[in-house]
């Protein structure tokens, strides 16, 4: 028997960390800039972009790493937002109660719907997640006592252990940024963990993974629940920031936008979903400042992206760097 060779060393690329660091630094400085230019509008836009980035990162865990194209992901945002909205309306303003309730509701819905969706795969999975998303959308829209289709205004704001600092302008900004950084870091750790390794392998070859002794279904369901819970937390933040929730948070177009963000940025890359979400919001702003009918431009753009640019922005960046090197 030959001697045992040593395992090849593990390399950790530095460039993505630098890029992410730059993005987070830029976001941290945005409140300062907005004092000089743009004002509250800019910080509010940044908060919205960051919340969507949190959701997009959680969706990439499903789409990019687990290979599960969920077209109902915005439903989890809506669930989180409505839990916050309804509890505040009913007088339970304490975040320490709201957050766990939102997490439990999202996890419960993810476990139930996921157990059914994950019995199928491919196109059926897309259609069924779409249908479950729509179910939440209509379900929330028919809650007449909580605003129905028109949505629900949060007349008072959530509190953190009795204080109001979360709903101050700076408070929500820093909490959202911190949540974004935490989500970004933890998701990366999950992808690289034992669990994530099984998930990534199952995307490529589920039969092989099962024949190694893994129940692929359990890993996928767990990922589905994790992604749902993260999105619900983002939903709670959204409700806190906007002081208004409506069923449209969970509309299927929203889910479509989220998929676009992930693909636009580059699936299953360290920073793809983050960059994609921020870029999407910027693009929306720029296009809609050019014309009110910006979707006339955005729609065909999507078709072109789908046909020609599947590596996303991160892939483009890599190619540029590759050409420069």
């Amino acid at each position, binding site marked *: 028997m030959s001697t045992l060779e040593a395992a090849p060393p593990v390399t950790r690329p530095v460039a993505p960390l630098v890029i992410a660091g730059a993005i987070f630094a830029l976001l941290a400085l945005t409140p300062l800039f907005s004092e000089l230019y743009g004002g509250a509008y800019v910080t509010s836009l940044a908060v919205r972009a960051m919340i969507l980035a949190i959701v997009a990162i959680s969706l990439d865990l499903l*789409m990019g790493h687990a290979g599960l*194209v969920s*077209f109902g992901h915005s439903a989890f945002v809506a669930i989180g937002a409505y839990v916050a909205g309804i509890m505040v309306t009913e007088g339970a303003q304490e975040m320490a109660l709201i957050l766990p309730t939102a997490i439990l509701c999202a996890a419960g819905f993810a476990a139930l*719907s996921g157990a*059914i969706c994950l*019995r*199928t795969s*491919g*196109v*059926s999975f*897309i*259609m*069924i997640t*779409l*249908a*479950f998303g*729509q*179910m939440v959308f*209509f*379900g*929330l*829209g*028919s*809650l*007449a*006592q909580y605003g129905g289709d028109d949505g629900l205004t949060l007349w008072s704001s959530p509190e953190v252990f009795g204080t109001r600092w979360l709903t101050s302008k700076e408070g929500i900004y820093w909490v959202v940024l911190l949540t974004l950084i935490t989500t970004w870091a933890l998701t990366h750790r999950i992808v690289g963990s034992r669990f994530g390794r099984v998930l990534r392998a199952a995307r490529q070859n589920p039969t092989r993974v099962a024949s190694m002794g893994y129940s692929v279904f359990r890993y996928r369901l767990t990922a589905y629940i994790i992604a749902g819970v993260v999105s619900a937390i983002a939903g709670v933040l959204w409700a806190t920031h906007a002081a208004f929730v409506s069923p449209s948070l969970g509309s*299927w*177009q929203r889910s*479509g936008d989220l*998929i*676009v963000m992930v*693909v636009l940025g580059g699936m299953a890359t360290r920073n793809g979903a983050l960059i994609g979400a921020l870029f999407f919001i910027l693009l929306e702003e720029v296009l809609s400042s050019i014309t009110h*009918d910006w*979707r*006339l431009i*955005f*729609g*065909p*753009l*999507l*078709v072109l*992206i*789908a*046909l020609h640019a*599947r590596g996303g922005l991160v892939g483009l960046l890599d190619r540029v760097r590759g050409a420069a090197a």
Partner: protein
Amino acid sequence: MSTTLILIQLLNGLQLGVILFLIAAGLTLVFGVMGFINLAHGVQYMLGAYLAVWLYGLTGSFLVALILALPLALALGLVLEFLVFRHLYDRDHLSQVLATFGVILFLNQLVKVLFGPASLIVPVPEFLDFSIPIVDGLRYPAYRLALIASGLLVALLLWLIIAKTRVGMLIRAGATNPDMVSALGVNVRQLFLVVFGFGAMLAGFAGVMAAPVFSVEPGMGDNLLIVAFVVIVIGGAGSIRGAFVAALLVGLVDTLGRMLVTDGLRLVMDPSSANQIGPAIASMLIYVLMALVLFWRPEGLFAPKAAR
């Protein structure tokens, strides 16, 4: 709650079911034969309705509008196929989802620009603008009955084509085994084009017929499209028979559910809570139905093959 009310709701459910079938039929064939997921299929329905609005405005006759709208809906479908969809058949589902999502955004906005964001109506054609007594004390609009009848007629026609003609045989074969069809020397691209154009025309027909009943507005096809997906999932992808049964089932469950759930809840809880919870449950009923069917048969009720 009276028997007449239930009868009316039954007819309303049938009407929804028929429209759903017309949309789902094309969708399930396109998916079954080409393995192509077309989110923009609901847009074809919307285009049909807008064609009806436009052509009615031009000609002043619903019948003429209907006759002109069908070839135009077909042409629009083929243009979309040529410009976008044919480049997607060999792509993965995610590319298909993204590109067809882009098509929806574009066309929804386009009709908003061309026709305005407000909802429009097409008047019921005069020769059908009366109601028919069905049982004592119950009259039902003739146009809606005509809609149901024409939908059932199309279903019958479709069944004849699929079951009896050579093209139908190829479509059935294609849904079960696409490789075999190409091995037979059939031009698959041409078959795709036929199926696609036909599906677009059916959805357009549904749109024209629905125009006098529902309001015509941008995005009107999107929600119906998702319900059509529910129909396909329940019926089994690629199966016309499945689409028919599931469409009627979904139409009836949705319509009757909206009436019966709240009434049923009143029996077990106080009326005000029932009034609050009832509509929420009713609006989710078809999705629960889908979940139950999937739990029992993940491949749908009439799947033409075990797995794809």
